[in-house]
């Protein structure tokens, strides 16, 4: 099954870079949201979204709040979530893992790291 990504980041630049990186590693399907609030609207209205890539620091609803909201909904308990953020402190990583992100990337990242993490998540879910 083809993966359809929801890219959540308030930075236009970062959404574009994540999208370009996805194309580079062979994924063409994605939709974008500029914060957690918009992400929830997109997620609830598009049944085909089956992978979320989210930033942490965003206005309205942060990435961490988005992860908690998604996980609180039984429908999305198994939805793969990858956090891509500048936050590289141990306590941040632990907090995100406790909120049940599947994996975590510290910016700046390469398409290779993105590919590796997506594959890890998909293979552990299979």
């Amino acid at each position, binding site marked *: 099954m083809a993966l359809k990504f929801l890219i959540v980041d308030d930075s236009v630049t970062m959404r574009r*870079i994540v999208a*370009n990186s996805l194309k580079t590693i062979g994924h063409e399907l994605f939709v974008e949201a500029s914060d957690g609030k918009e992400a929830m609207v997109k997620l609830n209205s598009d049944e085909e979204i089956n992978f979320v890539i989210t930033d942490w*620091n965003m206005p309205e609803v942060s990435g961490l709040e988005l992860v908690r909201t998604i996980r609180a909904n039984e429908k999305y308990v198994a939805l793969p979530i990858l956090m891509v953020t500048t*936050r*590289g402190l141990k306590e941040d*990583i632990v907090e995100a*893992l406790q909120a049940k992100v599947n994996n975590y*990337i510290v910016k700046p990242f390469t398409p290779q790291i993105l590919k590796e993490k997506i594959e890890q998540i998909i293979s552990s879910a299979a």
Partner: protein
Amino acid sequence: MMEQKTNMENIFDKLGDLKSFFIYGQKLIPILQKIIDFMQSTVPLLENVNREIQDSTSKIPKAALQINRVTNATEVATTEILDVVDGVSMDIHSMKDKLQSIKSRMGEDDDLVTLLGMIEKIETRMMNITISLQVQDITSQQLSSVNHLIQSIQEKLSSLVKDLTNKENKEIPSIDLYPRDGTFNADARYDKNSKSQELVDSLVTKRNNSKTSQEEIDKLFANQ
């Protein structure tokens, strides 16, 4: 007679006290004069300080606005660079397809192989440009952090001006001028070393290896 003498003695004692007070007062007058002179010379200085604070406070929103303009300009410029990178990447991709098609028709050719190798190098370099452009997001978070500090300085100075002049600052900055808490990471760094990612990987492995309840996962990280 004895009682009258006592009263007189009391009066003389009081007069003595009064005399001592006048002598002390005479000594005190120059000191008081010096204090008054000092206060008089300090008033213009304090007024000057007050004016400077008000002036600086009024300039702070302009500095914040300038920082926001820098962020917006770098975002626009980065988008333009990404447009160019996308265009070049598409051209390179179609060149690569055409060369592959020539190669399949003509068979192995050293020049073609060299050209395809060069194209792959250009593709890698184009991707490296894209990766480096993440610096725009990271620096914009650092600038947001500076704006946040500027906001707190402005609030403190405005409060000081209010205390000194008893007047509210009429120049209320726009709501969008300053970033809200949580919308940026003050510790954002453009650092290509993989130490943070290695830490992530070790913690993720630790979590994934303990396929246990959330309570146990929380316990696992409790002392991190």
